């Protein structure tokens, strides 16, 4: 842990902009016991902060600003708070509360005409928060539990049995109707409500050979939540890739990619997951590493930044990140050869934030869906606003997450589509619980499952659980 007591601006500064940002503003002179918010180890960059011209174009796409209409819960407001931190303001509970409230959806990055890299700023800030802020015992316990569970497939798998038994027992209805869990432990209630109805796990081999002529050799990330809660998505991904002429390599030793840790400032944990993932795929000799979970793909593309300071891994991480592709991105680049069978269905496509905003992948999944004869695509109003899932945000912030989820569900219902398609397990869980609460009956599927059904000539009824 690196700590510093930066209180004066007369330290030598190599970057003149940084010097300006630090020397300006209130400096707690004569109060050396007050530690400024950030230490010297990669604080949010003053130079990136100075890109913000305070135009406010980010506000209307920011989920928390949409909810609360407060400046400090908006991207430009949080940037102001970061600046205050750089100028010596302490990391108060209030400040942390506003950083924590950010969903990390990156809608602001898309909306920003000045090119502010808010994603880098908030990630750097979160690492500092984790390093210097003491959380309440309850919050700490919840976070410890989450990070002891989600990134570990075996532990998630262990949970499958009891969860299936619970879901089969009819207890969920009783529990939800009673509202008991909501009152006793809202965060647990949120988790309970989000858990999807579990499907049977399909075990994937380590290598799935290409159908017909081989066009590429790809690695496939199976993920944690995706693999355990939505195993059908992984199976569909492997089938589609094979049908399009790819040898699919699925290394056994792969684990969590570290996305949840990256997005929550748990730097060391993130780094170690990143190294392990690189190790798992590096020797497989693949042309691309294909990912079907938006959040995972987004952070794997960031490995170069995450491991930039690690001399053993910096170069390898760069090479690895260069190979990472979202499955829709990869298929669009490859071009499809496998014939599509018609699917007579109206589809509402939901942009997962970590696919649309973080990776800029919007047209590829839409175009792939449009290739399917008979399929009609509809757009969802307020498409740029997050559904409220945001990794573990909906577990830590159940009430606002529910408001955002319900808003999204209303917009989805407004399309009148029969099937909701998206590319992230978190969105699927969040949106399905909101749709269920709202009583909207609509099928849910991952983009790749729709393509898979079309290639295999399966009927629409096989797609996703009906809600």
């Amino acid at each position, binding site marked *: 842990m690196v700590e510093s007591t930066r209180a004066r601006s007369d330290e030598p500064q190599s970057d*003149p*902009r940084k010097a*300006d*940002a630090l*020397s*300006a*503003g*209130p400096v707690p002179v004569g109060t050396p016991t007050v530690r400024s918010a950030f230490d010297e180890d990669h604080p949010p960059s*003053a130079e990136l*902060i*100075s*890109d*913000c*011209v*305070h*135009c*406010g*174009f980010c*506000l*209307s796409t920011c989920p928390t600003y949409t909810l*609360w*209409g*407060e*400046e*400090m819960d*908006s991207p*430009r*407001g949080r*940037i*102001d*708070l970061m*600046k*205050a931190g750089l100028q010596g*303001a302490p990391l*108060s509970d*209030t*400040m942390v509360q*506003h950083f924590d409230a950010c969903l990390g959806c990156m809608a602001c990055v898309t*909306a*920003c*005409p*000045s*090119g502010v890299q808010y994603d880098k700023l908030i990630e750097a800030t979160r690492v500092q928060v984790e390093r210097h802020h003491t959380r309440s015992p309850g919050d700490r316990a919840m976070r410890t539990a989450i990070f002891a569970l989600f990134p570990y497939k075996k532990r998630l798998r262990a949970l499958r049995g009891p969860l299936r038994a619970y879901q089969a027992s009819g207890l969920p209805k009783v529990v939800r109707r009673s509202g008991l869990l909501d009152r006793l432990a809202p965060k647990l209630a949120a988790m309970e409500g989000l858990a999807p109805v579990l499907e049977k796990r399909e075990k994937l081999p380590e290598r799935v050979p290409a159908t017909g002529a081989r066009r590429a050799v790809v690695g496939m990330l199976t993920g944690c939540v995706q693999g355990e809660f939505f195993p059908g998505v992984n199976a569909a991904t492997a089938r589609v890739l094979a049908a399009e002429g790819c040898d699919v390599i699925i290394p056994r030793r792969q684990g969590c990619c570290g996305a949840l840790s990256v997005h929550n400032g748990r730097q060391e944990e993130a780094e170690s997951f990143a190294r392990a993932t690189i190790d798992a795929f590096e020797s497989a000799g693949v042309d691309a590493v294909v990912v079907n979970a938006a959040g995972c793909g987004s952070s794997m593309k960031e490995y170069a930044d995450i491991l930039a300071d690690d001399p053993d891994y910096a170069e390898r991480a760069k090479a690895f990140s260069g190979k990472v592709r979202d499955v829709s991105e990869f298929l669009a680049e490859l071009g499809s050869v496998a014939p599509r069978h018609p699917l007579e269905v109206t589809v509402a496509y939901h942009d997962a934030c970590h696919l649309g905003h973080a990776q800029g992948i919007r047209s590829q999944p839409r175009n792939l869906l449009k290739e399917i004869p008979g399929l009609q695509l509809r757009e969802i109003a307020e498409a740029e606003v997050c559904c409220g899932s945001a990794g573990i945000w909906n577990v830590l912030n159940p009430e606002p997450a529910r408001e955002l989820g319900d808003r999204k569900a209303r917009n989805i219902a407004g399309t009148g589509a029969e099937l909701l398609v998206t590319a992230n397990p978190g969105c699927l869980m969040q949106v399905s619980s909101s749709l269920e609460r709202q009583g909207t009956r609509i099928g849910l599927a991952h983009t790749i499952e729709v393509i898979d059904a079309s290639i295999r000539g399966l009927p629409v009824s096989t797609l996703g659980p009906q809600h």
Partner: protein
Amino acid sequence: MSGTHGTETTAGPVLGDTPPEATSATGEAGDNAAGIAAVGRVARALMPETGVIADPTQLRTYECDGLAHYRVTPALVVLPETTEQLAAVVKACSEHGVPFVARGSGTGLSGGALPRADGVLLVTSRMRTIREIRRADQRAIVEPGVINLDVTRAATPEGYYYAPDPSSQQICSIGGNLAENSGGAHCLKYGFTSNHVLGTELITPQGDVVSLGGLAPDSPGYDLLGTVVGSEGTLGIATTATVRLVRLPEEVRTLLVGFHTTDDAGAATSAIISAGVLPAAIEMMDALAIEAAEAAVHCNYPAGAGAVLVIELDGASAEVEHEYQLVERFCQENGSFELRLATDATERALIWRGRKSAFAAVGRISPDYIVQDGVIPRTALPEVLRAIAELSSSSGVRVANVFHAGDGNLHPLVLFDGEKEGATEAAEKVSGAILDLCITHGGAITGEHGVGVDKAAYMPKMFTDDDLDTMQLVRCAFDPGNISNPGKIFPTPRLCGEVPGKRKKAHPLVEAGLADAF
């Protein structure tokens, strides 16, 4: 403007050359402490905990609006949800002599919502209900925090939209639009906010709720509504606005036309308008502005263009077709080398995206910049543009031009690097000289951004003392206590008891302690 430009203090504007009066325009931190505490108590009794902000860290995020080089931390921020709450807080301000500043989304470009260090910032971002869409009457009744674009979104399914469209329409609020009489690209054909607001419920600076105008097009008596629209928050706070909805046109055609020079583009503009064609919008961007927009949103404007025009025609299909033929001809006759017609909504959005993001996009090609706003008669365009180019080359300060060519509303963007010695001063000099050019060519110091705190010092260049005193009489009639956004618009604060006219010091009676000016 860059967020890190200049030095910052917790009170007082930060620009070096800001006139000394401006300090009193923003107040001193710590003043009115008792009054502010009293207003805070009133607000807390009426609102949820999150509706009253007094934490210094949180207050800091409200220190500026869209003009970020003026920064003042307010003493208190209040986020009311209802007219009753807002009126009660204003009344408390009035009773305790505490100045207040109203703010919507905080996107203004003249510092009109710059807070007072000794006052309360009243933010309307939680008053965002569209109360009514009256399709048959072509009216909408909305709260002040409603986002401009959301009015259009709500009216579109009914076949209508809200015409004024500032570049920031995705986030700017109707209350702010009303205060600043905002324009936008389409005001060439459809007019400014003042042409679209038919009524408002106003909280006077004494905290009374009054109605001005209504659903009907005109009210008898003095046009108080017309006085309030564009008064920059100095006459009260609007809590609802009744706005006109305009029928969605049968057809819209958006063209992007490339020219080699701004002279050619300007000549094409004049040819189009003088032939009697009234497009919904004619917007011009010069090479530097195009470069910035390309960097920001990859709008794919014609390569190598010295200027582009974005022209939008709307109306009945037959009319649009006829106008399109004329526009195409006038562009070609004036040296256009590429004309693109948007074929679908996506292409139209991309053309507009380049234009609408241009201000903020300039941040990509320059560390700091000043967004200037001036207006000139359209016929003076070529001459003023040449004069700006001369100013730029003689001073070495780069100037990008983005403007509403159709109605002569210029938005020169003066680029500089605040880190370089003397650069800020040089840029401000050029920026000021551009305003002088506007005045000498029969124009004005602001077309649509308002005077705010930024241009108060330029008011005497346009108006005589008598003019300014007359305006002050209007202000005093609404706000005798001088608590509603004091320090904006007018260069010199003036007490309402004073006789209009130049005065160097306090009234002799006040000085002698025999009378109070109020």
